[in-house]
Each structure stands twice: as C-alpha cells, then as structure tokens.
C-alpha cells in the first residue's frame, strides 16, 4: 500500500499520511456502524427494536449522535488537572489507532509490513493503559480513579494469557508478521489455524483441540483487555457511573468511545488473523476462478471485515448475555484458570510443533 502510493506520488510524507488515513477511516466508519449494531443487537436480544426513526432501522442514529456530540460544550472540572485531562483521550485513541498500523486488511491493503507486527500490537496497547490511568487520575474524581485503577490492573493481568497464546501461535507459525501468518492459512477453511494449520499430517489433527482451547482463551482475554462485558468493571455503569471517563463530555468522550470500538475491532482482527485465517477466504476466490486477479484483494478485504464483524458480534452477544464479574472473580478467572490453561496449551503446542 505504502509502496504503491509512494510510487504514485513520489513523496514519502504524503504517501505515509495517506496510508495512515485508511485505518482512521476504517475506525470511524466501524465506530459509527458498531455503535448502531450494538444498539440493535442489544435491543433485539431484549425483544425491543432499538433506534428506528433516523434512516432505515435507525442506521443514521449514530451520525445524529455524533453531530450532537460535536456541538456539546467542552466542560473541564475545576479540580481537574487540565494538561493531563486533555492529553488522556488523545493518548487512548492513539493507542488503539496505532494498532491498526500493522493489521493486514487484505494482501494489498496493509500499512506496515514489519516483521514484528504481532509483538507491536501487544506493546502498543500499553499506551491505552497509560492513557486510561491518566484520564482517571486527572479527572480528580473518585469514580474515575477507581475505574482507572481497575482498568490498569485488569488489562495488565489479561495481557499475560493473551501473550501466552500469541506465543504458542508464534511457535507454531514461526513468524511474528501478521501478514505472513495470514498467508499461511490460505485457500480454504480447513487450513485455518483453528483447524490445525495448513500442513497436512498427524500434527494437524493433534493440534485441533488445543487450537480450540487457545482460540477460546485469547478471545476471553482480549475481551477483558478491551473492557467489554462481562469484564467491564472499569466502567461499570451501575457502580462507577462510567469509570475512568466519567468526567469527560463532548468530543473528548467521543474519542474514548472511538478508541473502545477501535479496540474491539482490532482485537477481533487479531483473533481472526491468528486462528481464523485473517483475510483468507474460506472457500476460495471468485477472482481466481473467473480470471480477474484484481478482484482478489477486494474479496480478501470483504472476508477480513466479515470475520472481524462476526467476532465483534460475538462480543456484543456475550455482553447482553452475561452479568458483570466481581473484581476477585475477574482475577480468579485470569490467574487461576486462563493462565494455567494457556501455559499447558503453550507447552503442548510446543511439543506438537517439534514433532
């Protein structure tokens, strides 16, 4: 993508900026769509209809809300620490936006082709933690601070099972590059990592159960990392108002929302790349069979978005199914259940991949 634009324009800066605009657009559009989807899914699961009056089945509702949000007064509490208060939403959004730099949307549309994409995604999400702590502390509000502390503790804890599963996948595939991992799972769905990867043999069948366990663990722990229900104690509405962004309003609040939805899609994308073949089509490409090669990247983009959205839908589905965990239960789930299982999984996958 960058190389293509660079050849087209011939200016590094402009090409770089243009490449950066692509994920930004994707986040914005996804946030608009995702918030609407969330409302509709929640409504239908509770036998309601949700927004119906702006556009067809209320699909413009989020746009209307955005317009409202942009017009809102920017209130800063008197006791707040102004500098940090203003930086925090930017930092949180930067953290979630920066993760998109390495996510391959299709074989042609990917920002950076760095070798260490997976490692980068794990690392850059720590900016979000710093931003959340900053937001919580600077608002000078007890609820915010409590929420921020909880968020930091939770995200740091749940990074461990995520990292362990990622590690086992790295051992299996032998690369940290998200693009390469996607490429390996090509042609059809039984080559996806969840079905044991592309290499056909005994190890493939041995791997399948452990891959299912791994996919489940990483899905749960990434769910916790993006603070979604049932792991939403940092922003628990019924006890902490809104957690670390209680004091924010208008577009700064909107940036937290954008970051949250950006993160949701990013972690879904990571899970789908690691286990569900990333941008690879499950059934082969139309472009290849009718001989139109230019169609393939678009199909890949479609499959990638479809997989991402499916996982996002599962996240929402869980949100409207489960109640919130208590803090000690949250830590129990992570330290006593997910981490041991992830460790055993790591060891077994290591042994199988040596076989």
């Amino acid at each position, binding site marked *: 993508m960058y190389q293509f634009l660079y050849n087209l324009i011939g200016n590094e800066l402009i090409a770089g900026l243009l490449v950066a605009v692509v994920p930004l657009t994707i986040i914005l559009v996804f946030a608009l769509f995702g918030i609407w989807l969330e409302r509709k899914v929640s409504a239908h699961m509770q036998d309601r209809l949700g927004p119906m009056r702006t556009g067809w089945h209320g699909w413009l509702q989020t746009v209307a809300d955005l317009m409202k949000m942009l017009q809102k007064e920017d209130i800063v509490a008197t006791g707040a620490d102004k500098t940090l208060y203003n930086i925090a939403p930017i930092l949180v959004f930067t953290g979630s936006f920066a993760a998109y730099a390495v996510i391959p949307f299709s074989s042609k549309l990917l920002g950076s082709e760095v070798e260490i994409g997976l490692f980068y995604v794990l690392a850059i999400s720590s*900016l979000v933690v710093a931003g959340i702590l900053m937001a919580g*502390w600077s608002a000078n509000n007890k609820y915010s601070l409590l929420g921020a502390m909880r968020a930091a503790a939770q995200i740091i804890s749940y990074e461990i099972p995520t990292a362990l599963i990622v590690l086992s996948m790295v051992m299996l595939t032998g690369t940290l590059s998200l693009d390469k991992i996607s490429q390996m799972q090509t042609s059809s769905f039984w080559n996806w990592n969840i079905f044991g990867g592309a290499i056909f043999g005994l190890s493939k069948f041995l791997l399948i159960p452990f891959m299912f366990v791994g996919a489940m663990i990483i899905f749960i722990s990434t769910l916790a990392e993006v603070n979604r229900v049932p792991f939403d104690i940092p922003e628990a509405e019924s006890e902490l108002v809104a957690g670390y962004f209680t004091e924010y309003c208008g577009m700064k609040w909107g940036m937290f929302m954008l970051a949250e939805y950006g993160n949701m899609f990013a972690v879904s994308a990571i899970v789908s790349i690691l286990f569900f073949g990333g941008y690879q089509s499950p059934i082969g490409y139309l472009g290849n069979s009718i001989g139109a090669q230019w169609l393939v990247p678009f199909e890949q983009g479609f499959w990638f978005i479809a997989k991402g959205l499916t996982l996002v839908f599962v996240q929402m589905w869980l949100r409207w199914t489960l109640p919130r965990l208590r803090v000690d239960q949250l830590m129990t789930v992570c330290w006593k259940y997910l981490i041991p299982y992830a460790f055993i999984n790591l060891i077994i996958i290591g042994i199988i991949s040596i076989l």
Partner: protein
Amino acid sequence: MNFYDIIFYIFAAITLLSALFVVTTRNIVHSAFYLLFTFFGVAGIYVLLGADFIAISQILIYVGGILILLLFGVMLTNKITNVEIRTGTVHMLPAAIASGIFMGAVVAVMVWTEWKSEPSVIPLTTTKDIGHLLLTDYVLIFELLGILLLVALIGAASIARRDKE
C-alpha cells in the same frame, strides 16, 4: 536535511524536553506521566536506527510495565503536589570535581571514539538474529537474567505472603 532527519529531531526533542519536565516539575504524577513521552521518544529513535525489536520491547517493558507500576506507586503516595525533590547540598567542592571529571570523560569518549558513520544497511528483520544470539553467544547472560527475575519474583511473592500470617 532529509525527511528522516526531521523525524529524528522530533523524537529527540520529545525525549529531551519530556525528560527535562520529569526532573523539573513539582508534581510527581506529572513526572511519571512525562516519563511516558521520554520512553516513547527513545523507542522512536530505536526505530530510526532499524532496531525495531528493541523499540517495541522498550514500549512493552517500559511503558506497559515499569511506567504503570511507577504510576501505581506514585498514586498511592499521600503527597502528590509540591514535593520537594531537591535535597540539601553538601560537599560542594568534591561533588563538583567528581562530576567535572565524569563529564570530561564522557566528552572525551564522545570526541575520540571513531564512530562508524557510514550508513549501514538496515537489516530487514532483526528478530531472528536476536533470538539466535540470545540462545548461542549470550545464552549464559540470558539464563542468568532469567534466574534473577525468577528470584525476584519468588522473593516478592514470599514478602507479600508473610504479612498475612
């Protein structure tokens, strides 16, 4: 001046300015947060040097681990603003001489070392080589560090446990 030079100067400025704020601000939470930008700037400079693995490790370990720990520590202190960080000055003369000598040494090293200044080829991937080196040439140090961390971990766990009895 090429494009990458500008980026380098931006990162350098971020690093230096935020480091300056870290030591001058009188609010220790601010100090801790400015440290974030220092770490970030250093990571940027690593990236410009082609050391992508180190850069990401820098962010993962310093921003994601140490800084957060630091913040937790700082937020648990009861006096946050107006902390008198400077302590009294004693032994002005020996201190001045010692730091003068140290600075002279550093400057001398900087001036007299023959820096490799030809633009080297930036390796496309560093991860594999780092892995190889860690498990061949530097395996002893690697293992020692692992044991050190393990000891620290066990020590921390046992300290935390003893209080409860």
